[in-house]
């Protein structure tokens, strides 16, 4: 039976072409782009009534790699919710609707000398809600914190259409249960985020990227890297040989390491000296806009890995953690954000083996695309999946929000 926009409680003008929302080759029966949070609530309320399955959409950056849902009735496009609701630079906080691209937010706060503490591949497309729901991050994950660390409060719509709000817009707040934090990483399976308040940062006065071409032995020497975590670089990313072309004019070695320094000028100079003492002279030094441009290219990289992309988390903080696996062929594709221990790589058919090898060295698989490439993810004590299931039943009692897309 055909589904109409009216069935979803919306005016016909909110309908959009379902062809643009295919997942794993499956097209939804209907696609809508509501213009307000109340309209989002209407859609979910109607879906709960009619037992429809809904997939929330932001910019589709992460969904591009998702599998096909078993059932796919409605694509819920949130990109018309794109207003900055409140921005008070002197409070260092911002409240915005969740369909706004993070590049727009970053430009808004940059105009006032501030920094958006969120990162994602393709920031011009990635939406605020998508970044939060997917727990997306980038090279500066340790310095900025993850999305959960920056989220002060949120409005969201539960699977039964209830519009709720927890937290607030002030930087300190322990009033009530922080349900908004639990939604970070929930991939739209618990609730649909419609508005969020963030804690911002002042923009650093100086940014520099030092690029080092590393032979294998240099990568593996813990003593070389030891001083670096204590000076807290903004980012330190190791790129496998495959990514050599990302930076021009650097000798072709086993890996490239980029140390990103973002702070006031005096400290950036001192940090540079400490880094060069430890690692030798850089092959390349990029300043300010050039350093930002390189960081943007590095941030996008994990999204370009294919066909099978694995994401690992680890407690490691320096590139020396890669020493035991440096000779593996898949390391040529690696993107390792050292301070936060996040590792991405492409494996082709060898995913299971890579997971096993890396698992022996402290790296835990936390995401894979396609989702069935390298199951299972981290095993959890039985009580945890049971708790997650109770939470889903509590917040989405009719199973409206699709789970299948993300299961592995």
């Amino acid at each position, binding site marked *: 039976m055909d589904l109409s926009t009216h069935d979803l409680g919306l005016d016909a003008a909110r309908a959009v072409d379902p062809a643009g929302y295919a997942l794993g080759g499956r097209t939804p029966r209907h696609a809508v782009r509501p213009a307000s949070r109340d309209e989002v609530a209407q859609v979910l309320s109607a879906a709960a009534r009619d037992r429809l399955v809904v997939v929330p959409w932001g910019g589709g950056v992460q969904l591009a790699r998702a599998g096909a849902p078993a059932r796919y009735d409605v694509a819920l496009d949130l990109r018309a919710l794109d207003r900055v609701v409140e921005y008070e630079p002197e409070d260092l906080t911002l409240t915005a609707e969740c369909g706004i691209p993070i590049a727009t937010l970053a430009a808004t706060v940059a105009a006032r000398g501030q920094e958006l503490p969120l990162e994602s591949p393709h920031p011009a497309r990635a939406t605020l809600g998508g970044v939060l729901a997917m727990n997306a991050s980038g090279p500066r*994950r340790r310095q900025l914190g993850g999305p959960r660390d920056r989220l002060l409060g949120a409005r969201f719509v539960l699977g039964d259409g209830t519009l709720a709000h927890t937290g607030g817009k*002030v930087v300190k707040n322990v*009033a*009530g249960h922080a*349900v908004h934090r639990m939604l970070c990483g929930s991939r739209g399976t618990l609730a649909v985020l419609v508005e969020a308040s963030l804690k911002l940062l002042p923009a650093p006065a100086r940014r520099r990227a030092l690029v080092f071409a590393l032979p294998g032995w240099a990568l593996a020497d813990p003593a070389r890297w030891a001083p670096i975590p204590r000076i807290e670089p903004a980012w330190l990313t190791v790129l496998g040989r495959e990514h050599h072309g990302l930076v021009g004019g650097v000798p072709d070695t086993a890996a490239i390491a980029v140390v990103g320094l973002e702070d006031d000028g005096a400290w950036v100079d001192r940090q540079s000296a400490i880094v060069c003492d430890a690692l030798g002279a850089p092959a390349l030094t990029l300043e300010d806009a050039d350093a930002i441009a390189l960081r943007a290219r590095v941030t996008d990289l994990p999204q370009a890995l294919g066909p099978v992309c694995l994401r690992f988390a680890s*407690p490691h*903080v320096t590139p020396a953690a890669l020493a035991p696996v440096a000779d593996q062929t898949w390391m040529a594709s690696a993107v390792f954000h050292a301070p936060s221990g996040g590792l991405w790589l492409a494996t082709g058919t060898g995913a299971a083996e890579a997971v096993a090898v890396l698992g022996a060295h402290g790296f835990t698989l936390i995401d894979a695309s396609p989702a069935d490439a390298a199951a299972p993810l981290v095993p*959890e004590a039985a009580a945890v999946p049971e708790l997650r299931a109770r939470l889903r039943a509590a917040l989405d009692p009719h199973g409206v929000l699709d789970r299948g897309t993300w299961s592995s």
Partner: protein
Amino acid sequence: MSFTASDLAELRALLGDDGVLATDAALFTYEADALTIERFRPDVVVLPRSTDEVAAIVRWANAHGVPVTPRGAGTGLAGGATPMQGGVVLSLNRMGQIVSVDPDRMFAWVQPGLVNLQLSQQLAPLGLYFAPDPASQQVSTVGGNVATNAGGPHCLKYGVTFNHILGAVVVLADGSAVRLGGEAPDAPNDDLLGVVCGSEGTLGIVTEICVRLMPKPAAVETMLFDFPSIVDACRTVSAVIAAGIVPAAMEIMDQHTTQLIEEWLHIGLPTDAAGVLLIEIDGPAESMRGQVDAVVAHAKAHGTGSIRIAKDAAERAAIWKGRKSAFGAYGRTQKGFYIMDGVVPRTRLAEALETIVGLADRAQLASGNVFHAGDGNLHPHILFDPDDPKAQADALEISHEILRMCIRMGGAISGEHGVGIEKRPMMSEMFAEADLATMERVRRAFDPACRLNPGKILPGGGGCGEGARSAREGIPARIGAMFPREDAEGPWI
């Protein structure tokens, strides 16, 4: 309900004789946390030594249908550790060890009963520290900090407890022990640790915590400014932030407060100024000069009278001692007072202060203000004669009005103390019914039988809020009423 000899024998079999307290004197001690005006007697106090023992107690309580109220050091000011429905008080004080430290990767596993300051003291030789520093840090525990998502003066720059917790072992309401998060910053799926942190012991009992450690800043500068008007002090705070400087701490005390501290401790605080602003910056030595100059310039532009920059660690400690003794100084007045923990957006601080002073003046009551200005966290005190019922009633009404003002300004009714028992009625003013019902749904998913710290946070209306019935049926909320002795060692704000 009271426990039988066989109940106690079962508990002793689980924990040993020294792990179970049931004498009148012991039960009296655990009737309340630092919100001593609300007292509820537990049936038993247990002192487990391990995650397994905590889990065994929770399973035992489930089997017997009795509530469990976890407790750290009991420094909470909102009644969060007060056993509203009796049952078991589960004290984590015997679980106070550092389990392991990884200095290279900068994290540590600790037990929840570890005192906050001891953690940083023990890490000092490694050049590392645990950033959250609630004013109670000499006594309060890391587990209690997690339960209230504690802040402290330095959370302006470094964030609150939640930002420094990587993972935890949590005993859930069914008595299973699970690990949420871990040593790595990221984990798959919804962030359960994110909602457990700050849940005041209602969603689980944290029995091991993986804390993120920070390198100790190489340099610190502590500055004290005085202002002819408190509004100018507040504007200086906004100007510093707007200039792109995030100090480690920015604290304001009003004249009422500085005079009381100075009469007592004689540490050289300016007493003739309407407001005193303490600004501390920290970080690499290379960055200090420029930031100090900029902060001083902003203070001058806003009319500061005197400028004092701590010459050494001793002077810095003296300045902070003044700030941290505010509560004790109020106690010396021999008056009762209500203390609040409201938050307003930083840019509305000056307006909030004027409103507070106006409310107190109209009722002819004295008020003191000491607050974490950098993050808009106010701790107004309304003083009253404890022998004058009308004055106390007026002070209570003003307390409620102040929290309503925080809500109207877009702030919060608690910045760091938590809701506990004390602020439940205000939750209905800050949140809509659907918001509270959503929190209740989450709480029920974690704890279907409402066994963990029942009666807290949510303002009644059935389910886990049932214990709050008394609050709805006419017992007035008593926002932070204190009748302190002259005692500089706490409570802390």
